Structure formats: structure tokens, C-alpha cells
């Protein structure tokens, strides 16, 4: 029931906080950019296909231009050769942006503890949510998406995130 000022305005006006309104919009219209490099990307394909249907969460508008996306999904192994490209893509995305690391490889190098594999993409770019598994099931991708939605909802639009992040490719 509306109280005070709102009571006098009737049904035509809704008062809310800016954070709530903007975050509500952002939360249900995340546009993912899929950085699919390996096997995990195949499971992302399944998350997007009919059975699991990522559009139920408003995130089906997969963008392949980072400039149009606000959610970076890193699906697959990142090698040192790939790392500068990942970083550049991240930088090309406009603020605010969120990053999901899908699978053991992106999270920690996975089963590839060797000379060519980055041991976790959080040494390159900041990560907001990790999905475990090799590969994770499509449901886990949806779970991570909901986790990001939760983060979006509870954040302030005025705060700049990950300001002080320094990765191995950032000049000191």
C-alpha cells in the first residue's frame, strides 16, 4: 500500500531508487559476449539451444562484438598466446561489465598445468563468477548467470568496479 506522497499520486507514478530501476533493467537483459575457445564452448552452445534455453533469463542476445556486450563469458582454455586477445576484448567492452569464467581451464588452467596454458584467467582480467567443471553442465552456466544477476541487482550504479585490478599483462 502506498503511503505519504505516493498515496496522493495514484497508480500513474512509481517511485523507486535509481539503483533498483537501472539494475532491474540490466539484470534481465545481459548481453553476453562468448569468448569460446575450446570444449566448454560446446556446452555453452547447449545452454543456448532449445532445451536449456538461456533466453528464459533474458541473456540470449549473444553479441560477438565486445562493444555491444556487458557480460563476458570465457568458455575454454586460455593459452599465453590467446591472453593478450582476451585482455583486449575485455577492454573493448563498455562499463559496466561482468565476467564469468566457465570451466576448470579458465578458472585455474584445469588439467593443463604446463608451459602454454594461463593458470586462471584472473591473472589477466578480473572475474566475477567462476563455474567449476570440465566441462560444466549447461545448468551450471544458467546458475552462474543467475549469480551475476544477483550481483547486478545488489550493486550501486555509481560504483566503478575492479578499479584497482592488476594482471600480468597490465604494465606496472
Amino acid at each position, binding site marked *: 500500500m502506498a503511503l505519504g506522497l505516493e498515496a496522493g499520486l495514484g497508480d500513474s507514478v512509481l517511485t523507486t531508487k535509481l539503483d533498483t530501476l537501472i539494475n532491474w533493467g540490466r539484470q534481465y537483459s545481459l548481453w553476453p559476449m562468448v*569468448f569460446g575457445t575450446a570444449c566448454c564452448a560446446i556446452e555453452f552452445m547447449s545452454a543456448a539451444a532449445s532445451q536449456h534455453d538461456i533466453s528464459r533469463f533474458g541473456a540470449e542476445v549473444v553479441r560477438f562484438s565486445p562493444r555491444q556486450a556487458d557480460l563476458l563469458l570465457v568458455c575454454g582454455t586460455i593459452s*599465453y598466446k590467446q591472453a593478450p586477445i582476451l585482455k583486449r576484448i575485455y577492454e573493448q567492452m563498455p562499463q559496466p561489465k561482468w565476467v564469468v569464467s566457465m570451466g576448470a581451464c579458465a578458472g585455474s588452467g584445469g588439467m593443463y598445468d*604446463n608451459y*602454454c596454458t594461463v593458470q586462471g584467467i584472473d591473472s589477466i582480467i578480473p572475474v566475477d563468477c567462476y563455474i567449476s567443471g570440465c566441462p560444466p553442465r549447461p545448468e551450471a552456466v544458467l546458475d552462474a548467470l543467475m549469480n551475476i544477476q544477483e550481483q547486478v541487482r545488489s550493486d550501486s550504479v555509481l560504483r566503478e568496479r575492479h578499479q584497482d585490478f592488476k594482471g600480468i599483462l597490465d604494465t606496472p
Partner: protein
Amino acid sequence: MTTPLDTILASVFADITRETVLDTRLLTVDGAALYEVLKRLKTYPDLDFSLLLDITAVDYLTYPKRAAARFVVVYTLRNWKKNYLVQVRVPVADPDTGLPSVADLWGSALWAEREVFDQYGITFTGHPDLRRILNHHQFKGHPLRKDYDIHAGQVCTEPDSLEPEIRARLKVNGVDDSTMSDINTEIMFLNIGPSHPATHGAIRIFAALDGETIMANVNEIGYLHRGFEKTAEHRTYNQIVPLTDRLNYCSALMNNIAYVKAIESWLGLAITERAVFMRVILSEFFRIQDHLVCLAANLVDMGGLTNYWYLYNEKEASYDLISRLTGARLTSSFTRIGGMAHDFYEGWQDDLARQLVDIEKGVNDSLKLVARNRIVHDRTQNVCVLSPETALSYGFTGPNLRASGVGFDLRKDSPHYFYESFDFNVPVGTTGDVYDRMMVRFEEIFESMRIIRQAVKMIPEGELFAADHRYVLPEKSKVYNSIEGAANHFKLIFEGVRVPEGAWYDSFEAANGELGFYFVSDGSGTPYKLKVRPPCFYAMGGFHEMVEGEMIADAIINLGSINIIGGELDR
């Protein structure tokens, strides 16, 4: 037993050491004679080794027995018509002087030699473009040398420009800066990838364009190089099975099978009939899966999204059966040396039969949309034509080679696993264009179904594992109740299956073509060396031959039509 090949080899190479290893004839030559020997193997009509399957090297630095030289380079060649397989081993006295390049004999040597140079630091004189291929351009050292530490990662700060390479390629194609100056236009350079939806993974395609026509093309790979071969040197034989899942991850189980088959061949370990039939059924089922993903993605690139749902949804539905059987959707790790992880579950025949009917429907629905579709025909027919000669020269195998009219299929030409007793056809194309590559895959789906249906009827009951406990784990009851059983189990798990010393090559007709494994064993439970002969590495190596002179949009669908899978490409 002397075969016709032995007789020919004896007459042509009378003074060269010849041995027989499994079904491979092994010639050992020295660097000075190498080029001549390989040239004869290729050009003598009786020999006619038109396929250079693979080149790799072995670093004998830490090998228990002293070898003649630290590095030995191994060439694997095939005469596909007669099913002859030859390997040429050549000790390398000095890696910096190296060996003569054979890139003028086979196109496949272009990338194969670059890989050996990158991983082992062996030079090939006369190679037109000898630089790294899998590791990044700032990398120092050669990771597959035994004195390179597996954990020594090296940071790459910026991608390679590729500019000198494309200029060199333009020159080869006879294009220089004066081209198009009459219309006041310059060559346009277009970079696609490594992160681009059309590259289906991480590949970089760099093209020089005249309008929309490609005048020159160079490609860069290695973005998904995950050190399979180095990692394998630190795992026991059975521990490598999960790594093989991640080669061609669209048909993981086929890699599992190809890998253990290669070891079993060397051990001389005969697996049970039930295991053989299981492998046939699952291989063919995964061949279908692989083709479904390839066609679905290829048709999306062409704008036919509906096909994606028809085809990919059947792949998704197949996961129910696959995960019921293996416990995983994608990465099955389902084989063990000497058998399979476990048997089929109860009621699998019905699930499989139903799934095949559904796949058939999905594929037929998709075919209805494409088979007589004028737009599809215009976009694919006579586009990116690959002649049989070029295909063989670059080492194409599998459906891509068959689409060019070369009817080579290991299931027919080098029969194993009772393939000779199944009734099936090998579809071949006539033109070698994108259309043929697609249609060969569509047809192969139907042929694989035929094989599965026959095999399901014939599969016998019985044991799944060979009863040889040097290689196969004992039953759990023995492990828990007898000291011999426990010790047997312990040794096999901790030390791995001990594989007799030696070096051998074995291959399998995987969804993408000839998937080969070359092993060097020092007699321990861990391979001393393991090299994969990845079919799509060689298909990608010939990509520029297919797209130069075509339109840029055709390059995209061509890439989809040769089915490049990063895990297998870059290993």
C-alpha cells in the same frame, strides 16, 4: 612374410636399413640421403606415397639407452591406394643445420616442418616460411625438448602482425603494390579472428582483398595449444585417455578409442568381441555427432539457423544416452587399455534405436531445407574447390578428402574391428567444393547408422575386458581379497601399464580423417613421447589453397565445411 611392398622397397632402397614395425615399414636414412629417399617414395609409380601424413621428432636426451643422435626426425607416409605405410627415420647431427625441407614435394610439410621447428628447434633448409606455429612469436626455447621444463610458461604481450607473411604470399601469387593502382585503389587487409564467431574457435584468418575477392591468405593457429604432447609425457598411459577427450571434443569417444587401439596394437593385446562391437557402435555414433555439429554450424554460417535447431537438438538429445552410458555429456573418457570403462546399461538398445530414428528425422528435415535449395546451391557449388592432387599434397584425409573424389577410408582400406564384415558405402564427392564436403557428411551420417544397426544385431554377450592382468586391472573381488590382486592393482595404477620399449604408429578413421598416434616407449608406464597426427591440422594447412581467388564470404563457409576443431588442431 614378404609383401609386394617389401620387394619394391628392397629393389629401390637396397642399401638402406629396413625394418617392419606393426604394419609400418621403417627406413632409417641419414640426412644427406633424406631428400632423395623421400622424393623416390613420392614419385616412383610403384611406390606412389602421395600422402605425407606427419613429421615429428624425438629428443633422446633422457632415453635410457644411448641413441645415435639426440634428435631423430620421423616422416610418416602413406600410399592410400594400396594401404602401404612407411616411416622414414633420420638422425639429426646438428639441429641448427637441420635437414632439407620437403615442402616442394608435399604441401603438408609446410606446417609439419614448422611444428617440428617450433617444438624441437630443428631447422629445415629451403623451407619458405620457417617460423613458430603453435607457440607464440615471443616464445624462447623449444618446449618438447626434454630439457625444457613443463611448467616454464612464457607470457605473450602482443599478437603477431602477420604482415610480412601476407606480403610474401601476395608476391607468390604475383600481386604487388601496382595492382589496382589504375583504379586508384589499394589492397585491403582483413583480419578475422582469433575471436570471431565465424572461426568456430580460435583461429586467425588474414586475407588481402581486392574488393571482396581474396588475393592472398595466411592463417595463424596455436591459440588453443594446450601442451597435449608434453603433458602426456608426464602421465601414465591410462591417464592420457581424458586428455584425448579434449582433442576433437565433438567426438571425444572416438579419440579415446583411437588412442587405446594404438597401444593395444603394440602390446598385441586382443580385446574381447564385445568390446570390439561396443567400440564400433560408439565410434559410429560419435561420427554422427561430429557431423551433426559440423553441419549445424556450417549452415548457420550460411544463414540457415533452422537447420541448426534440427541438427543440434538431436545432438543435445543424444547426450541423454551418452551421459547415461559414460556419466559425462562431452568428455567421456570411456576406454581403458584392454576394454571399455564399463558395459552398456540395461535397455541401451531401445534408447539407441529411438535416438537413431530421431537423428534420421532431424537430418532429413534439414536436408529438405538444403538439398534442393537454390540459395544453398549457389553458395556452395563450385565454391572453394579442392582438387584431389592438392588435397593429397596437403595431407587431407577423411570426409574432406573423400569430397574431392579420393575414396580413401581406413575402415575399408585398412580394416580393423570387423569393419570389413559390415555392409556400408564410402560416399565420395565429384567436385571437391563446399557442397560436396557437406553432402559427404550428410551421407556418412546415414552410412554410420547402417553400421550401428548391423552391429547392434551382432554384438555378442560376454566379457568386456581382455583377461591379461599385465595390462588390465583385476576384478575388485581379487583386489580386496588377495594379496596378488591388491599388488597387481596397485602397480597398474601407480606405475601405469608397462609398455615394451619401441616406437610405433597406429591410426584410426576418426570423424575428421586419419587420427594417428606415434609413440616412443622406454619400457616404463609413461610414454617417452606421444605425437598426435591430427587430421584438421593438415586440413587447415591447405586452407589458403581453397580460398584464394574466392570471395571472403566463401572463406567463412569453407572453414565451416572442413570442420576445424581447435583442440585437435592445436593440441
